[in-house]
């Protein structure tokens, strides 16, 4: 296969995942939330159980007027949705789907790369919050920045623990080194990573930056039309990225009960779907955390636990 063809196929695959998986997660969210709360949810668009609701939403967003508030800082305001979306696209590029380089772009320091680009997403929150020239937006942005800065630390520490266990920073390498008993050994790190990841993508119960009952819609308040849709899309891609990272780092990625070499991609996708389901489940189950509870959870529970996990990982590694 010539190089350019391979490149096109790889990038096309990542783009397809980038466009399809968030929609699937969104649709699943509609249905799961409806069932868990004993209500119907969107049922009419498209006929069978409202499967076309997201497409209808998309068409609606495209038709809406693209409003930029007069007092806003125009270029920054208009750039923010792109800054929110691109980091997740780049992150998807290096997450392995299966063995034998079934990945957008194999990278030796994939873990570091993912953490670095996901961290850039905070900028989008601050940009959209400030440039909107709206006090609710600014409040939401400040809450968001405080939350994201705090939770980045346990996220990185938990990821460092599993990188230490595997002895590599390559995401494929981590999956190859993974063994089922790591589920126990790395369990605290998995919980910490998952919770911090939830906070990083500002999903409930960590949705204080967009708290719709207090701040209208936080830093998203002034956005309309396609730009709003992009910011929402960023949230759902975020779910996919965090679920995929949890899968790859802690749940063994493409390692399944049988036929890893042929069906690896299926095991990965199934695990990603399961973790995404849990993310939706948590949204339905838990009330929003207050600002002080949020910081307390981060600095008094997650960070010390992550440090303890690092010590445990190091001890087991040395003993082995």
């Amino acid at each position, binding site marked *: 296969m010539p190089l350019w063809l391979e490149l096109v196929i790889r990038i096309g695959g990542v783009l397809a995942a980038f466009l399809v998986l968030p929609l699937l997660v969104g649709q699943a969210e509609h249905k799961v939330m409806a069932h868990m709360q004993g209500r119907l949810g969107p049922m009419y668009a498209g006929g069978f159980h409202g499967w076309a609701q997201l497409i209808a939403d998309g068409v609606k967003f495209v038709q809406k007027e693209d409003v930029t508030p007069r007092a806003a800082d125009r270029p920054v305001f208009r750039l923010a949705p792109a800054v929110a979306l691109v980091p997740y696209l780049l992150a998807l590029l290096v997450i392995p789907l299966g063995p034998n380089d079934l990945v957008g772009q194999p990278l030796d320091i994939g873990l570091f790369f993912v953490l670095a680009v996901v961290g850039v997403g905070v*900028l989008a929150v601050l940009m959209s919050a400030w440039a909107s020239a709206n006090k609710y937006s600014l409040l939401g942005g400040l809450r968001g920045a405080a939350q994201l800065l705090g939770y980045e630390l346990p996220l990185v520490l938990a990821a460092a623990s599993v990188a230490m266990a595997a002895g590599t920073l390559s995401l494929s390498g981590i999956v190859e080194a993974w063994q089922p008993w790591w589920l126990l050994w790395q369990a605290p790190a998995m919980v910490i990573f998952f919770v911090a990841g939830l906070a990083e993508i500002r999903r409930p119960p960590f949705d204080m930056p967009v708290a719709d009952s207090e701040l209208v819609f936080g830093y998203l308040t002034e956005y309309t039309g396609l730009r709003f849709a992009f910011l929402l899309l960023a949230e759902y891609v975020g779910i996919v990225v965090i679920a995929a990272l949890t899968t790859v780092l802690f749940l063994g990625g493409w390692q399944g009960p049988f036929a890893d070499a042929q069906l690896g991609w299926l095991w990965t996708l199934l695990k990603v779907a399961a973790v995404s389901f849990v993310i939706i489940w948590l949204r339905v189950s838990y009330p929003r955390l207050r600002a002080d509870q949020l910081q307390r959870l981060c600095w008094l529970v997650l960070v010390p636990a992550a440090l303890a996990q690092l010590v445990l990982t190091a001890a087991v590694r040395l003993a082995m």
Partner: protein
Amino acid sequence: MTGVDVLLLALGAVAVGSAVLVVSTRHLVRAGLYLVVCLGAVAGMYLVLAAELVAWVQVLIYVGAVVVLLLFAVMLTRAPIGASDDLDRPGWPAALIGGGVGLGLAALLVDAYRWTTVSLPEAGNAERIGEQVFSSWVLPFEVLSVLLLSALVGAVVLSRPDIGATADRGRSR
């Protein structure tokens, strides 16, 4: 001139240009955003020089944390949209010092190396950097970590009147 040279020069131009914008713009928050561009361009230069890990550390620490903290602080205190005309800063001493130091350093480097070519060592991957940091550079590494720790402890003491800062000093303005 190879493609790598062109890329390096272009990234350098972006870095210097956005750095000039950081200090010359009258929009407070935009200055922080230009800083992001500048630091990103520097990370790109590391990438071109095959120092992958350093490049992504640059993005993770500087773009993802330091600049965000800076923007956060600016927005928490005073961040008007649009130009702040009351910024009191005569530009020419800074231009003189900055330009002078830049030109001086450039002249020094040009004079020191002339046309000497330096063959690049093999790519700076995580493994080699780890080995270097924890073997020959372990003392500076540890000293730096002690410095950061003391800064951290100092910040805690200063911000908490109940253990360090006296109450009236905490309230003085």
